[in-house]
């Protein structure tokens, strides 16, 4: 993998993780409201718009990344987002990491390393 491909991969990973965390932050407030008010509440949250901007940028970064690596390898490398997001969820939202989740994260990481070495 070229340095450029690694940079785009990392950038995509950061944007994807930040976008998910931002949406979670936007959605987690005002849960006592009814559905319509909850949507209005979310639309006023800066987190929601930060997430939308992040995802829009990610669209371009992903296209750039896939132009630099083979498609199948790119999609497999993108699976690391699941692992990073779970670690971020643990750190930011104190979500628990059960044994099944840990096993899944380890297997995915091992798979991504294996694919990454072959690109």
């Amino acid at each position, binding site marked *: 993998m070229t340095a450029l491909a690694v940079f785009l991969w990392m950038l995509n990973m950061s944007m994807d993780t930040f976008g998910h965390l931002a949406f979670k932050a936007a959605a987690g407030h005002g849960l006592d409201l009814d559905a319509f008010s909850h949507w209005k509440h979310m639309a006023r949250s800066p987190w929601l718009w930060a997430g939308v901007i992040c995802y829009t940028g990610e669209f371009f970064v992903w296209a750039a990344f896939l*132009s630099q690596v083979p*498609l199948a*390898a790119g999609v*497999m490398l993108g*699976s690391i987002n*699941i692992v990073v997001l779970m670690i971020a969820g643990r750190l930011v939202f104190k979500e628990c990491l059960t*044994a099944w989740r840990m096993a*899944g994260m380890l*297997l995915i990481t091992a798979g991504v390393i294996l694919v990454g070495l072959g690109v």
Partner: protein
Amino acid sequence: MKRFYLIGFLCLMASDTLAQICFKFAGTAAEPLAFDVDWVLRIATSPWSYGAMVGYLCSFVSWMTLLRYAPIGPAFAASHLELVTVTIFSVWLFHEPLTLSKMAGGLLIVLGVLCLAKGESVVGEEHGQDAAQGESRA
């Protein structure tokens, strides 16, 4: 209900696969890659980008429809199995070689996703949000 799941999963997989293939075509067509406005415009105006958006939109609709009835664990696993179909299409459309590292790595990733799905089913049962409850709402 079985047929509903099957059609739902197939729609999800097909739309995710379509989106990734379109992304690859969009990225390749917009080459050479440069960090400038021209490149961004090439991507934004590429018909392949709209294909990717349609794919994502269909994937979103199938996912939300599926989630109304399907338990989250298996649904999550199924939503990441596009890895397998994308690989098959990458060999066919882009003549990418099926290397050993890709197959072994892909297998590990799929196993990992299955573990995560299993984990969510276990958590769901603890909270009483298992498949039975999901279906009773339907």
